[in-house]
């Protein structure tokens, strides 16, 4: 991978229409310029141009099927994105566990204080 290709990757994912196309290709297990154009309010020509950009960036791969190319999202690239999200999820699990511990410790302390106070009052009343 050289710098020119990386640049293509960057601009490929930076465009909202192309991100939407990636979503559709994932949801519908691939698609052609025609099928994508039907789902987006974008001309077939524009979709075809976007597909070229995605293809050049390695985010999708096209296979000729009849008169058109059918495109699929690169599953390795997707796996990387998913793996990264899983990592982020795991760090949130740890943070939430700590939130739970802190909140429960505060609650426990408040309970104890309330109990001591009521015991003190009972003593005074006696």
């Amino acid at each position: 991978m050289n710098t020119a290709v990386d640049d293509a990757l960057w601009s490929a994912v930076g465009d909202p229409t192309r991100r939407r196309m990636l979503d559709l290709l994932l949801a519908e297990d691939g698609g052609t310029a025609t099928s994508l154009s039907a789902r987006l309010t974008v001309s077939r020509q524009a979709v075809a141009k976007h597909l070229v950009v995605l293809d050049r960036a390695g985010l999708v791969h096209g296979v000729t099927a009849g008169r058109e190319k059918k495109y699929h999202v690169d599953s390795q690239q997707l796996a990387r994105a998913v793996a990264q999200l899983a990592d982020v999820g795991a760090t949130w699990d740890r943070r939430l566990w700590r939130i739970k511990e802190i909140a429960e410790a505060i609650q426990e302390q408040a309970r104890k204080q309330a109990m001591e106070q009521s015991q003190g009052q009972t003593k005074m009343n006696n």
Partner: protein
Amino acid sequence: MEYGSIEREIRIDAAPEVVFDVVSDPAHVQQWWPDEARYEAVPGSAGQIVFTKAGEKFPVTFQVVDVIPGRRFSFRWAHPEGEQASKDNSFLVTFELEPAGDGTLLRMTETGFRERGWEAAVLEDAYRDHSQGWDYHLARLAPYVETYLVAAR
């Protein structure tokens, strides 16, 4: 399919008011996430969270969005310094609280990965696999991945 968000739920044996303080008060937040948290828990308050790694400080932007005591606290983070936090340049974290018996059901969602996740995944890979063009990658990688690597504790 939604790859752009993370959702979690946890049951806590503490009143919603207590849990709300723990997720929103900077003094508590720095006990479960960054080393330092500086902001006011009021809508729109712009501040900073700071992570310390190997003696070095990594400040990250932080902006409070919603504050509904006992119910909801949300904020955006990791937008470029000097920019207003928005949907396209930051992560949105939302805590929703709901009474559950004697305790609280805490729901957390973090979104923004749809906008930034692909870039990060692609770059992370480049970061691992390529020594060529290192400076080039690093310059672009730094603000995002550094934030996440340092904040992943």
